């Protein structure tokens, strides 16, 4: 069982990462990853919706028939997102002003529908929630990495506005990396998002290749050891 969870975690964060492997959720990714704080906020909101939709869909998987599952899933997700939108507007108002435009976009995030359809509707409640958490964390990770890269290169700051998101204690995160920086417009604008995403995807491939090579190398050496054992 714990093996399953490890598999789910590995899938969500790396092997089957929403952005890296499935190339889903690019719309919110490119739109909000201009700064690291925005990326983090969007990631947390999306993760919450993914966990909650995983929970509800897995609970109701025996009730929902395959014929009407898609509209029902969309209804569940849209309701959750609207509730998150209302709650954020009421209690995290400053953050809502920054992210407000993008919260309704979570509904159109096909990754959430994809996970409810391909995982939550076939699994029990706990694994479904865990899958939502891990997929959401994988997405948040990419959002934050892209936010960091674009923010540092584009405006020379890091985690600007983190105090809005996490409270006053987080203001130590707000750094000015390059002082008197004129800004690099291209990186802040959508083309910059595509560029950074391209480099990140290439980077993921390189790491995967290196891992693969090391694995086959190891297997080779194990095979040789076995062979020498037989010989002796």
């Amino acid at each position: 069982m714990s093996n399953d969870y490890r598999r789910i975690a590995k899938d969500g964060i790396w092997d089957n990462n929403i952005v890296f492997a499935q190339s889903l959720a690019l719309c919110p990714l490119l739109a909000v990853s201009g700064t690291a704080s925005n990326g983090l906020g969007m990631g947390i909101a999306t993760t919450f919706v993914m966990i909650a939709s995983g929970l509800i869909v897995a609970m109701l998987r025996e009730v929902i028939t395959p014929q009407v599952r898609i509209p029902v899933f969309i209804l569940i997700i849209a309701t959750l997102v609207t509730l998150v939108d209302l709650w954020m507007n009421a209690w995290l108002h400053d953050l809502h002003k920054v992210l407000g435009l993008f919260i309704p976009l979570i509904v159109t995030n096909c990754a959430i529908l994809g996970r409810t359809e391909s995982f939550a509707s076939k699994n029990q409640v706990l694994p479904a929630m865990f899958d939502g958490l891990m997929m959401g964390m994988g997405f948040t990770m990419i959002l934050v990495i892209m936010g960091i890269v674009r923010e540092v290169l584009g405006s020379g700051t890091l985690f600007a506005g983190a105090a809005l998101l996490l409270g006053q204690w987080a203001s130590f995160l707000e750094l000015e990396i390059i002082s008197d920086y004129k800004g690099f417009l291209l990186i802040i604008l959508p083309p910059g998002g595509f560029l950074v995403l391209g480099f990140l995807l290439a980077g993921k491939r390189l790491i995967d290749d290196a891992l693969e090579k090391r694995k086959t190398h190891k297997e080779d050496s194990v095979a040789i050891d076995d062979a020498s054992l037989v010989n002796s």
Partner: protein
Amino acid sequence: MKTPREPKYRKRIGYQAMLLGGFSTLATILLVMGNVSTKDNIIIRQQEDLQRSLAQVIPDDHYTNNLVENPLKISAHDGKSITIYRGIKNKQVSALAWEISGQGYAGEMRFILALDNTGKILGIRVLSHAETPGLGDKMEVAKDDWILEFNGLSLGNPAEEQWAVKKDGGQFDAFTGATITPRGIVKAIVDALKFYHHNKNQLSTLTLKDKPEIKMATGANPHEQ
């Protein structure tokens, strides 16, 4: 959804319809509950936002009332309504502030503009815009002092034909690399000043209970773009 022996009723169209209907009802109930539980809080937050932006454009010594209270609502001839917030001191209207909008490079830009009782600009701040970061966003006070240049000016100071960017023969600097944005801002401001000019007497001699007829002179509609 691999139930080996699916009960028959699940295949019926009625079950499907019930399912969808049931979920829709449930979603509606949840959303109504969510709306009711957050409505008051959201209104308070929005009032705080408004209070904050009004306090930015109207200096403290110009009012003793709560700026958000008792605004004057005017409906323009095109059906849009303008809400004018008033700073009151010694039972006199000492400042007026309302939202204006201009057409920028990337869509509508919204500003809050405050005038004193002689028609001089007390302050302007941008509320929202979608201009290009780094080029067209210099109207934000955090990025540039440009918008402060308007403080103290009025219709006649400079003369009306000088209310334009330098490229159009006026007196205001455009931003480097962006002309459309400042042009839109200057136009929005001068329209608002004209609106004030046409309705000066009604707007500035109000006591709180008056509801005078406000005329919207053509071309002086602050929402015109």
